[in-house]
């Protein structure tokens, strides 16, 4: 145990001095600070700037009414919608860039609701130009004008304006600000990403450390002093501490930045992560770290050079990247079957669960199953990893092949 802690202490010392670690640890809060400064100096102007960059430069939309249902054009729409008596002239103007697009209201519009939108430049720009909400308002106003009361018409145009009220456990109205979605969603999500970054920087350092020791040919001296298990345990503990330090720095900096942001923009109740979620996040971080640290150490022991080790480790990194690839599915539905399956497989579950916890509620049963499977995966990987680690460490010239590994399992 004493020796294990000694190795851990040494690893902590060595890795805290790594330029990569220092830069990474300071860079993230620095980026946050820069973001905050830019936000406070330019305020809303930044938002406008980005909006103007991404919104298409609209010149207007033509339309051809073949159904005869629409009233004469209302003045408030005059600069957005241009009536055409026939499709040919509308098409000519579109091709001459006089208008962005035009739509045709067919004779059977009332029965089918179908509206054909013509545009240039491909599907997406046609869709943007169509701007359904705006088009909807235009149609509602031109279909109902004069037939119903103006207030009813306005209500039809905008039938709902949700006023959210959150009740706390006592039934009192909660005082959360309308910005609480930042705390409920964005902040945990950002923390999930940071957790994953730390998880991979630290286990990456572990990989690097082991292959450096192999390249430095120091393994034999180490193993004449301590057992491979002590070495492995010490490394995992030491780099785990490195990871926790990084996470602590980031969480501390994050909390401070959020507090400043809250004061600057007069927002309250923004930091709204439940302690339970935070704790679960930490549990998945620690377990995920244990799993990947073990696998990275094993990969490090197997390669004869750092490059070779990294190739082996690539297999595990790829597994960890799968949840990111599935992000679009998870984004739409955090409880989609794919997301659930990825939450159960030990190689993907730490990252998947960190992402899902960021998105919000995960059913308790799924958390339980995923934790049990993850812990089982860690136990197996530690057991097998210690053996492969031992065999791999002493192989200099060649990478252990399956035969070598099989023998290692038989012997131990």
């Amino acid at each position: 145990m004493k020796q294990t802690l000694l190795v851990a202490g040494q690893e902590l010392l060595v890795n805290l001095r790594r330029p990569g670690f220092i830069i990474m640890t300071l860079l993230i809060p620095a980026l946050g600070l820069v973001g905050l400064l830019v936000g406070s100096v330019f305020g809303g102007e930044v938002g406008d700037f980005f909006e103007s960059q991404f919104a298409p430069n609209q010149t207007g939309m033509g339309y051809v009414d073949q159904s005869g249902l629409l009233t004469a054009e209302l003045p408030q729409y005059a600069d957005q919608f241009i009536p055409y008596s026939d499709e040919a002239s509308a098409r000519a103007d579109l091709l001459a860039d006089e208008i962005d697009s035009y739509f045709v209201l067919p004779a059977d519009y009332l029965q089918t609701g179908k509206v054909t939108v013509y545009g240039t430049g491909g599907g997406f720009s046609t869709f943007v130009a169509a701007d359904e909400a705006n088009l909807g308002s235009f149609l509602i106003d031109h279909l109902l004008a004069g037939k119903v009361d103006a207030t009813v018409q306005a209500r039809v145009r905008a039938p709902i304006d949700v006023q959210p009220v959150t009740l706390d456990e006592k039934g009192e109205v909660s005082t959360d600000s309308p910005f609480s979605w930042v705390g409920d969603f964005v902040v945990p999500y950002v923390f999930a990403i940071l957790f994953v970054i730390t998880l991979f920087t630290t286990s990456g350092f572990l990989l690097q450390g082991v292959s450096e020791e192999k390249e430095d040919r120091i393994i034999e001296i180490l193993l004449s002093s301590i057992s491979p298990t002590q070495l492995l345990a010490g490394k995992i503990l030491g780099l785990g501490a490195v990871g926790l330090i990084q996470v602590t720095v980031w969480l501390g900096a994050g909390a401070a930045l959020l507090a400043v942001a809250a004061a600057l923009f007069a927002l309250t109740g923004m930091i709204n992560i439940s302690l339970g979620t935070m704790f679960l996040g930490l549990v998945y971080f620690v377990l995920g770290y244990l799993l990947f640290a073990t696998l990275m150490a094993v990969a490090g022991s197997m390669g004869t050079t750092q490059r070779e080790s990294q190739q082996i480790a690539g297999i595990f990194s790829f597994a960890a990247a799968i949840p990111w690839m599935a992000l679009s599915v998870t984004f739409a539905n955090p409880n989609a079957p794919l997301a659930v399956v990825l939450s159960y497989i030990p190689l993907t579950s730490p990252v998947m669960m960190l992402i899902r916890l960021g998105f919000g509620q995960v059913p308790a049963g799924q958390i339980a199953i995923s934790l049990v499977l993850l812990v089982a995966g860690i136990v197996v990987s530690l057991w097998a990893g210690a053996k492969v680690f031992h065999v791999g460490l002493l192989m200099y010239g060649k990478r252990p092949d399956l035969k070598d590994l099989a023998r290692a399992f038989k012997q131990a």
Partner: protein
Amino acid sequence: MIEVENLVKHYAQVKAVDGVSFTVGKGEIFGLLGPNGAGKTTAIRTMLDIIKPDSGAIKLMGRPVTEATKSRIGYLPEERGLYKNFRLLECLTYLGALKGMPRRQARRQAEALLERVDLGEYAKRKVKELSKGMTQKAQFLAAIVHDPELLIMDEPFQGLDPVNTELLKTILLEEQARGKTAILSTHNMDQVEEMCDRILLINHGRSVLYGPLDEIKARYAEHAVLLECDTMPEGLVGVQRVEQHNHTYPKGMASAYELVLEQDASPKAILRQLVEADVAVYRFEVATPPLAEIFITVVEQVQ
């Protein structure tokens, strides 16, 4: 100090060590010899519990090897290596501490040893900045920094100039004088003859020569004496033939001879005759072949 009994270790089809037994007593310098690939490194690694033997028993200091015994052993492996990115002193301190020595004590010890081998001014340098010879010396120190009772050294003087070789030899002999035991594995037979009390020669994983060095040499001794004198007297009784080795001295001065004796003659009787003949004798020695010759003979016999 060390008892190894019937040690067997196979790798796939190769028998690296095949039933080797030996003991090493306290305070001895023991030579572990053998051609390349004979199984020396495997034997050493099993002794250090780096790899497990297939069968056989190893006792160090009366007990099977545990983590506690490991801290009393200093090991200089054939594959040299130190933390290249560490500072020299830091590296030695860490390796000493890993052997269970308190960090502060390990540091003091490392500082003293670095001074001893003239590396004091390099203590704060990174290991990768050192020359090859310096690294070799540092490696030697890494094996003794925690003041171990048993030293296992694989080619400890490799790549060192004569001055540094003498320096490290002296340190090793001093350790022996302090009651330390050492196992020396080397291909340099002169060093073995100079330092070792007993040896074990293994070939193809088997023990082929084992015992006190002088006994082994006596066993392989031809029945002959080496003689250096001014004039070689005629008609010595018991001498079968005389071979002159004239290369030793310039002509007209002393000459060197090898006297091959008859079966029942003794070297003592020859010496008596020389004294009676009033010959100026510069050197009189029972001829034993150099260890290197024995080594070659034995290894070739087995093959």
